[in-house]
């Protein structure tokens, strides 16, 4: 789709770059809608069309926001708020002033056959534990598609009424991705939220449609599902929709080419994956815990698994999924391609460790669930705290922090799409802000998720601003940050083999020892003269469990340790991870 520059441009940056208006190349059933056709200038649109274009643009659905197929010129050309097109109000967004909103996009209720709580139970806990936003994601299933997806909605709307000032509650579902794992799909609240989710589930859920097995045909069905979500937004049925892959390495069935395929099919819908899975209590040792694998990562390859994945991929490392925890691994191979793909951390809360509630007798059977789309409301149990459950309440342990321009549904979705996201466990940090800026300047710089364009030879620096945690977490201790790692990799461009899951140059380039430091910590790391395009990401830990990384000590000297089966105390092994910032030279 072409651009005629008929709309005003107003770039407040001082360096020149060529405008490569090759955005909008993503496949999608746009169908000639003038709102979506950016070759039609704003001035030619009716007011209601202009308003809709404005919303889609701010949400990152339209235009060349970072949610393109690539940060490289062949994809989206201009990569953050300051580099977007002139008709976009978001370029005037506050650069310092993001509200960092903690959330969780993976939560199950009594509408899941392996869960038990009311929506209200989760929302009141999440609200008390400090979450600003949350997504209800019951499993896709025949009963859910028929009954549960509708039955849960009044409960969600009631929770919005009661808790909406503190905690935003999205409706979503956990999609059985055809040919692959599970993933969160959720939409902006609105009058069609149930209709869109229900049609999506009936048409594209792997269990409902018997398309879970790995096959080329089923992989295509997943892509059509993403097309459906994109069309639901561009047609205005829902204001926004997005997808994140959940526990991606758990069973080895999300192959690298499938992940790349989702992202490339609908880069504004398929946004990322869980960097850390839920079920973080599953490694608490017996007899006072489940004594399983952290995250319930205790599987082995199956017939549906990608044969190229090593056994090391089926294990968590410091609570994080192998794709994310491996420096120079699968996630880095996507970032080195210039492919925006963000990580999150969630509870996957089904039944909570040491909770003593139970499903009500008589309304606790599969038959009852299938007939009613849910179990009965939980009741007080009579057997004491359930120590064999491996989940935490939303907000209790895992947090996904989103830099939003304001408190609101659309702003959270915009922040997620932009990749202004970092995650932590056990409330490790009080706050975090990461920027790339001209060296020695007072420029507020570019936040997480940005692709910074600069002249070759320009000197830049990375600034990591941390406020250490001064409040006890939900295990009643004040966590202490011990170290911060800067991870850097060369942007090498698109890979020829879509099943690539390594990248050779990415490694930890700097470790800051911050043991004993309290309060505000500002860490500055000079990036030298910009030459080849590269990216940065930041990681840190309490320093309690470290080991040489999978690609060796030369790549990651003190990375997360593989979690032992049977005893992985989640509170004595806390990490934070940020999403990346790219630096691209022109």
């Amino acid at each position, binding site marked *: 789709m072409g651009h005629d520059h008929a709309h005003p441009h107003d770039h407040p940056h001082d360096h020149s770059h060529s405008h490569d208006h090759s955005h909008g190349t993503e496949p999608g059933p746009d169908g000639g809608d003038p709102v979506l056709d950016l070759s039609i200038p704003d001035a030619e649109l009716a007011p209601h069309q202009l308003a809709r274009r404005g919303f889609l643009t701010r949400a990152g659905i339209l235009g060349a926001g970072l949610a393109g197929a690539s940060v490289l010129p062949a994809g989206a050309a201009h990569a953050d708020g300051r580099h977007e097109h002139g008709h976009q109000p978001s370029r005037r967004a506050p650069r310092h002033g993001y509200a960092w909103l903690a959330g969780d996009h993976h939560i*199950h209720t009594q509408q*899941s*056959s*392996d869960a038990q709580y009311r929506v209200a139970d989760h929302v009141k806990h999440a609200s008390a534990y400090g979450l600003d936003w949350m997504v209800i994601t019951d*499993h*896709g*299933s025949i009963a859910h598609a028929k009954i549960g997806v509708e039955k849960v909605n009044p409960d969600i709307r009631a929770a919005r009424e009661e808790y909406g000032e503190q905690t935003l509650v999205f409706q979503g579902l*956990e999609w*059985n991705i055809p040919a692959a794992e*599970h993933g969160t799909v959720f939409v902006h609240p609105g009058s069609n939220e149930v209709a869109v989710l229900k049609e999506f589930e009936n048409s594209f859920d792997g*269990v409902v449609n018997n398309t879970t097995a790995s096959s080329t045909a089923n992989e295509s069905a997943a892509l059509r599902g993403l097309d459906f979500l994109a069309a639901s937004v561009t047609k205005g049925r829902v204001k926004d929709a997005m997808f994140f892959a959940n526990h991606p390495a758990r*069973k080895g069935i999300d192959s690298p080419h499938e992940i790349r395929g989702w992202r490339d099919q609908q880069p504004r819908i398929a946004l990322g994956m869980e960097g850390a899975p839920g079920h973080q209590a*599953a490694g608490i*040792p*017996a007899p006072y*815990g489940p*004594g*399983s*694998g952290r995250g*319930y990562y*205790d*599987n*082995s*390859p*199956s*017939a549906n*698994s990608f*044969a190229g994945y*090593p*056994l*090391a991929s*089926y*294990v968590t490392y410091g609570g994080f999924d192998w794709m994310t925890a491996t420096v120079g691994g699968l996630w880095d191979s996507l970032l080195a391609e210039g492919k925006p793909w963000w990580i999150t951390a969630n509870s996957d809360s*089904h039944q909570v460790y040491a909770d003593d509630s139970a499903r009500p007798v008589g309304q606790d059977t*599969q038959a009852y669930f299938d007939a009613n789309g849910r179990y009965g409301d939980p009741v007080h149990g009579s057997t004491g705290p359930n120590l064999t459950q491996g989940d935490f309440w939303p907000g209790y342990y895992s947090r996904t922090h989103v830099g939003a321009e304001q408190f609101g549904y659309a702003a959270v979705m915009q922040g997620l799409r932009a990749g202004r996201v970092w995650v932590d466990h056990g409330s490790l940090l009080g706050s975090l802000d990461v920027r790339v800026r001209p060296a020695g300047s007072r420029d507020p710089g570019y936040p997480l998720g940005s692709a910074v364009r600069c002249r070759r030879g320009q000197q830049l620096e990375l600034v990591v601003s941390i406020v250490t945690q001064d409040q006890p977490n939900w295990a009643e201790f004040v966590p202490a940050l011990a170290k911060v790692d800067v991870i850097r990799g060369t942007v090498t461009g698109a890979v020829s083999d879509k099943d690539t899951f390594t990248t050779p140059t990415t490694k930890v380039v700097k470790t800051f020892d911050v043991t004993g430091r309290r309060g505000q910590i500002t860490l500055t790391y000079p990036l030298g003269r910009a030459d080849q395009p590269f990216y940065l990401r930041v990681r840190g830990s309490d320093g309690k469990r470290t080991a040489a990384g*999978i690609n060796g000590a030369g790549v990651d000297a003190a990375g997360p340790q*593989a*979690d*032992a*089966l*049977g*005893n*992985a105390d989640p509170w004595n092994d806390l990490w934070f991870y940020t999403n990346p910032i790219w630096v691209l030279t022109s």
Partner: protein
Amino acid sequence: MSSGLLRLAGGFATTREAEHAYDGSGGAFVATVFDPVDQVVIVSAENAQQLPDRARLFVFPGHEQLSGTLEVAALLELLDEVRSFDGTVPGAQERVETQRFVRPLVEAGRTVLVLRPYDDGTDSPDRAAHVPFEQPNPTPCCANH
């Protein structure tokens, strides 16, 4: 299939289903292999050299002796190699909690038991620090309930 390799049955959804269906026939080594069409297939051979890479053994000479906590040295009396999934090799006296479920893999005709770290949560001096990588009761996929 290479010579000496027998295909006993196929079309199983999982390795566990295949093992339950196994009728006791075949040679000294019986394994599951994955196939794009037939999913899980049971194959058999008289020796491990005849089995393809990644064949997963559930019958092999001496397999019935493997239960309880064993030293690596005892496992090496039956298998060619024992190593952790990260490539490190445990000492001969290190202990492995077998969980009565030992499923070695074939690599270039050799039998290899891959381990993962294990911690039973106790401070017992003779506790096992490893379990076989494949678990007897992995957490099932939630949505298939």
